[in-house]
């Protein structure tokens, strides 16, 4: 049996959403702004082995994104535990790095923030620029980018460091066809290199293409976890 890449044991993620932070007026009156406790992930247990590609499906609000964010350490787990072999890279759609900087500078900043040293960054930047396929736009400020262009940049930055574990949240959906093919190829290479992928997507075709196993989440809990065909068949029938 291959080694574990990550393990979730009874992981729960709870966070509070408020309409706004309490204002002085609220504090003086002893009121708190309407706060809503969101129990987004409620006791999720699963193992992912090195080299596995696992799709995560479920309706909107079922806790998929939250689970991924907790797995990369962007959100704390409120109960249970998530163990990882290395810090996973997270790819989301709302990815912005620094809007006022150019794409090229964002690549640099992103790579440095991931802990690469100067020399490695200098080596990598041209290849990443090339991979984004953004052409001259790479030297324009990121605030001028479309969501597809942002996703391309972010995907290129996140996969440039060849992270062992890649968490992808709908990030491929916004790219155009050419870029989706290119990123699919990179994911294949990543898998061939015994990389691990967790892919959240509403595009079941994409999940069928790239995942051997699927986890179905509903209301923050696992409904089914098994081979892609079985789970997707049940999911589509639901």
């Amino acid at each position, binding site marked *: 049996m291959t080694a*574990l890449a990550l393990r979730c044991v009874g992981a729960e993620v709870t966070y509070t959403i408020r309409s706004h932070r309490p204002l002085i007026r609220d504090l003086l009156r002893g009121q708190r702004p309407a706060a809503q406790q969101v129990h987004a992930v409620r006791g999720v247990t699963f193992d992912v082995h090195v080299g596995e590609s696992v799709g995560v499906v479920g309706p909107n609000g079922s806790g998929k994104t939250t689970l991924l964010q907790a797995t990369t350490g962007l959100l704390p787990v409120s109960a249970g535990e998530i163990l990882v072999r290395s810090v996973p890279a997270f790819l989301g759609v709302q990815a912005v*790095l620094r*809007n006022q900087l150019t794409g090229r500078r964002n690549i640099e900043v992103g790579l440095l923030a991931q802990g690469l040293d100067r020399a490695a960054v200098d080596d990598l930047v041209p290849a990443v620029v090339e991979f984004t396929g953004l052409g001259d736009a790479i030297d324009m400020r990121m605030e001028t980018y479309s969501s597809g262009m942002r996703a391309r940049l972010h995907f290129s930055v996140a996969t440039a460091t060849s992270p062992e574990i890649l968490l992808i949240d709908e990030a491929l959906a916004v790219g155009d066809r050419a870029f989706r093919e290119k990123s699919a190829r990179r994911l294949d290479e990543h898998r061939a290199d015994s990389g691990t992928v967790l892919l959240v997507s509403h595009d079941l075709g994409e999940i069928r293409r790239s995942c051997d196993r699927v986890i179905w989440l509903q209301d923050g809990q696992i409904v089914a976890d098994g081979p892609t065909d079985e789970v997707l068949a049940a999911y589509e029938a639901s």
Partner: protein
Amino acid sequence: MTTPTEPSTDGLFPIGRPTPLGIYLRDLWARRDYIVRVPLNDLRSQNAHTLLGGAWLVLNPLLQVGVYFLVFGVIMPIDRGVDSYLVFLTLGVFAFHYSQRIISDGARSMVSSMGLIRTLRFPRATLPLSNSVGQAVAFGPVFAVMLVVVVAHGNAPTARWLLLPVLFALQSMFSLGASFAAARFNHLYRDLENLLPFVFRLLFYVSGVLYSVDHYVDDALLRGLFALNPMYVYVTAWRWVMVGGPATVVEAAAAVAWALVALVAGFAVFRAGEQTYGRTG
């Protein structure tokens, strides 16, 4: 469902938990190239849309001193108990603004990098720290102007100048520490960044930047109270080191104490909020 009992968890570590201090510092150290390079690039592009470009790094402090000197040295030249008002002013204004820049830009450092925080996982202390490094580098040209003013007024270098790196380090430590705390509070409530300009304006007037506290305040106890104001302490220390202005042991001790206390306490305050950055509520 896979039963998570069989395979070994060797080599796995928990995520989403507060990182122990040692590992946090190690992760921070691994970001050293970020901490130095990103603010340097920012400095370079900061004046990208100006005619004079990088010259502003020198022009800005020159103009500041110029304005104060015009108003308080030429238009209203009253006795402030100092020999060379220009030198006195230059040292005071530059020392004061160094801390002010670190703390007020540091306060905004989390809020202005929200995208980065929400996308990538890295020790958040990287951001205030890299701001401080950037300000320290930007202090280079300011320091050069300072030297020219001091030497041009016939102040030859003395042995005390050897203490400059120590003083600079202490003031940087204090300012960094304060900026850590400010970054956390400003992330929680942006009110702080609205308030800070006024806090610094007030501090500017009570820290003896424009006049000699020594000249007006004789009472030792009252002077001791001034040592509670770190900005006064560092402004005074610069003058003592560079041109032999008056200073006491109390003020020297305060310069060290403020540096250590602010850095340790500020870092602790900042780290306690590590998990909250990038989130609302």
